[in-house]
């Protein structure tokens, strides 16, 4: 069965520094991968999706993710964190059933 593992339950960065949220996947097939974000007391919002057209995927709010088949990873990055990025982030794998990772809570310190 396919699955994703988010390697950090909590990441804390200072405003203006880079963000790295790590996700590894397990799949027998070429996967479809997504990142979603959930701000406190808000709904889930799609950040970006990997569709095999390009290994580096750009999303909203300056986030991007790189698909690395050799490392079975799909890590989310942003060059410079903003206070408004504080939220919970979910990596998701799809093979006709969308399965979520456990989430990474991002804290941004002033």
């Amino acid at each position: 069965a396919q699955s994703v593992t988010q390697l950090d339950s909590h990441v804390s960065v200072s405003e203006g520094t880079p963000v790295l949220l790590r996700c590894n996947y397990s799949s027998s097939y070429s996967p479809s991968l997504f990142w979603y974000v959930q701000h406190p007391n808000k709904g889930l919002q799609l950040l970006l999706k990997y569709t095999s057209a390009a290994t580096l995927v750009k999303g909203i709010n300056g986030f991007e993710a790189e698909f690395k088949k050799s490392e079975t990873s799909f890590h989310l990055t942003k060059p410079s964190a903003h206070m408004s990025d504080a939220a919970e982030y979910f990596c998701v794998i799809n093979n006709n059933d969308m399965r979520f990772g456990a989430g990474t809570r991002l804290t941004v310190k002033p």
Partner: protein
Amino acid sequence: DVKVTQSSRYLVKRTGEKVFLECVQDMDHENMFWYRQDPGLGLRLIYFSYDVKMKEKGDIPEGYSVSREKKERFSLILESASTNQTSMYLCASSPNRLYNSPLHFGNGTRLTVT
């Protein structure tokens, strides 16, 4: 814009009650999903459906059932509610079985079982 509507935002039920959570989408989506969200566990898939009258078990189907009599409506049923089913329940839909179809979420139902 796609709208996924969950019938209740907050619900309080007693142990042993039969509970119905309703979800309606207005964009003729084929796929519908039910998740529960708990702190530290992310979203866990309970059931999903590709078409009317079709259902597939997710990771945690025990204690739940679903119904999809019409394409736009996907109901989650707790046959006999228990306190460990206290959670946030999220319904989602996606257009079709293409692998890159993103999910559209409802606002969630926070269920408390006492």
